[in-house]
């Protein structure tokens, strides 16, 4: 039986800028089940990172959560005090970021930084925390962890820094790990190492993982379920196998056809998506994707489509597929 760990309901996060209000996350709802790996894909500006930061309540000003709820089991994270939230961060939910160099503090030793979440949550544990941190560095594949835990971040390579970040996230044995583009800054052979590690962590500790990425290949290999975001909204969600085989939103459909595949047999021109991602201050009317959509009908520029069940396992926010059209046909 699956148990819902994290529930996000109609989350709205906005940034008030001089040019207008940026609706970075605009009514996002999803659940994370215990032990699963959920992928969130989208391009820059799709709202995938802001969704993660909103869950952690780490949205930088002028950003603000203006609506919705984030529930961890039965606790509403949007209403608890900052002190309580600090306990949740690290203890129940940990986040790792794209660029480990800017997330590690350059003036503290790596071992201490990995131990810090434990010490913050219980000062008496300082001694044992250091031991645990060293053990965790070993678990994530840092060679000679006892010695290397005394190093500073600049003495680590990019891949090792990302491992240290993951160790830092895992020391408190959180139930949820949010990885925001954890391999984007890394080379492919190092990316393979880190994805392998995240997969191990998921299997060994049963940590539920939200993997945020723009790389559809990474999602295909790592995630049971996937959420596709465009312009601050979820446009499609469902089991990864079904979404890739049978996309129910034209954006997902086009994206899969626009990327070159290593295993492609013949050289065929890529089916590029025309136009550019929309300005979040002045979203197109109706469906935000309609100006770039090859399937659009009249209604798409008038009414905003909502996420509804399309097919047996998927959800899509599209008038065309909700009307019964099969994009693959």
């Amino acid at each position: 039986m699956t148990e819902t760990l994290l529930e996000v309901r109609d989350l709205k996060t906005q940034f008030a800028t001089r040019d207008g209000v940026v609706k970075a996350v605009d009514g996002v709802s999803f659940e994370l089940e215990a032990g699963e790996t959920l992928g969130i894909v989208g391009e820059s500006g799709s709202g995938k990172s802001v969704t993660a930061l909103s869950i952690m309540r780490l949205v930088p000003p002028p950003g603000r959560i203006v609506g919705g709820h984030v529930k961890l089991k039965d606790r509403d994270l949007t209403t608890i005090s900052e002190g309580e939230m600090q306990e949740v961060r690290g203890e129940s939910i940990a986040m790792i970021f794209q660029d480990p160099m800017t997330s590690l503090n350059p003036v503290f030793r790596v071992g201490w930084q990995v131990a810090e979440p434990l010490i913050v949550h219980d000062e008496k544990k300082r001694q044992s925390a250091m031991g645990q941190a060293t053990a965790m560095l070993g678990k994530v594949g840092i060679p000679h962890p006892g010695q290397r835990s005394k190093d500073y971040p600049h003495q680590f390579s990019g891949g090792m820094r990302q491992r240290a970040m993951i160790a830092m996230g895992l020391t408190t044995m959180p139930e949820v790990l949010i990885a925001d583009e954890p391999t984007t800054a890394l080379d492919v052979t190092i990316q393979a190492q880190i994805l392998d590690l995240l997969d191990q962590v998921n299997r060994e500790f049963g940590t539920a993982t939200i993997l945020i990425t723009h790389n559809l290949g990474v999602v295909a290999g790592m995630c049971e379920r996937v959420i596709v975001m465009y312009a601050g909204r979820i446009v499609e969600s469902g089991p990864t196998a079904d979404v890739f085989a049978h996309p129910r939103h034209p954006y997902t459909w086009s994206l899969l056809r626009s990327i070159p595949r290593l295993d492609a047999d013949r050289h065929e021109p890529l089916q590029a998506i025309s136009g550019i991602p929309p300005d979040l201050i002045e979203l197109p009317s109706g469906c935000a994707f309609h100006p770039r959509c090859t399937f659009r009908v009249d209604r798409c520029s008038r009414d905003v489509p909502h996420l509804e069940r399309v097919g047996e396992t998927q959800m899509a926010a599209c008038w065309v597929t909700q009307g019964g059209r099969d994009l693959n046909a």
Partner: protein
Amino acid sequence: MPEAARSTTLKRAWTASDPLLSVRGLKKWFPISSGITQRTVAHVHAVDGVDLDIKTGETLGLVGESGCGKSTLGRTVIRLLDVTEGSITYKGEDITRIHGQQMRRLRREMTIIFQDPYASLDPRQTVGDIVGEPLDIHHLARGRDRTDRIAELLRIVGLNPRFADRYPHEFSGGQRQRIGIARALAVEPSFIVCDEPISALDVSIQAQIINLLEKLQSQLNLTYLFIAHDLSVVKHISNRIAVMYLGKIMEVAASSDLYRRPRHPYTGSLVSAIPIPDPAIEKKRERIILQGDVASPVDPPSGCRFRTRCPRAREHCAEEIPPLESYGADHKAACFYPLD
């Protein structure tokens, strides 16, 4: 005897069936200085003995991880960087140490497109001036002709000619890359180094630029050296691919060959590490996960540079540098214990 005639009697003249560009034993080292006297204490062996031919009209892909020297190689072959050792031949002419008038002529033949379309465009110049600058430098067009030529170049890359009066910040990343391409085309080059031209772009925009580069190649008979870290993109656009690791070419082969039958263990692991956007295929694939990190180019390993991470390495690999050897037509790999 006139100079030109004498050289043809000594050597057959260059024809389009010969390599457009040939590189032999090419090295590019960067000094590392230290102390108050700024004495050179070591060198970064960025490019460390490369042999490579680029055929007329082809796209040669160059892949490798960050720091492997692929960008340095790209910049050195078009003489944006001085050569430390070795030779570069372009259309049969040795261009390793040319300068002055000859160099100016070369700059009209070969050019480069950069990764970051924002950093490589002057924010205070209008698009028209950015694209027109090569025309001014090489005295290619003036006045009305210049305006017409700029409009034509913008049209070729899919931009509205009216954009000539605007500034780079008014454009999206994909459009800026188009401006960079228009500037590169201004001198009517034969050879273009594309240095990670799509890495900074959004996924949905990358295909637009790839398709544009392919269209331009067939329309204008261009030869590309396409540098990228993403093997799927490189395989899509290239006829042949060269794989680089720590300053050396490990393998070079036709694109489909390299993917289907990699010979070098590094290529094998690189191919297996690239995720394929298909869950059914990903489930069945076996990954070769390499241990450790790339060694330092300041003090590269003896023998084969990949041996410190190679699952097949034996003693011999540390003693001798494996040469590039042929495996059938147009397929070379530098490994003593290659994959089947």
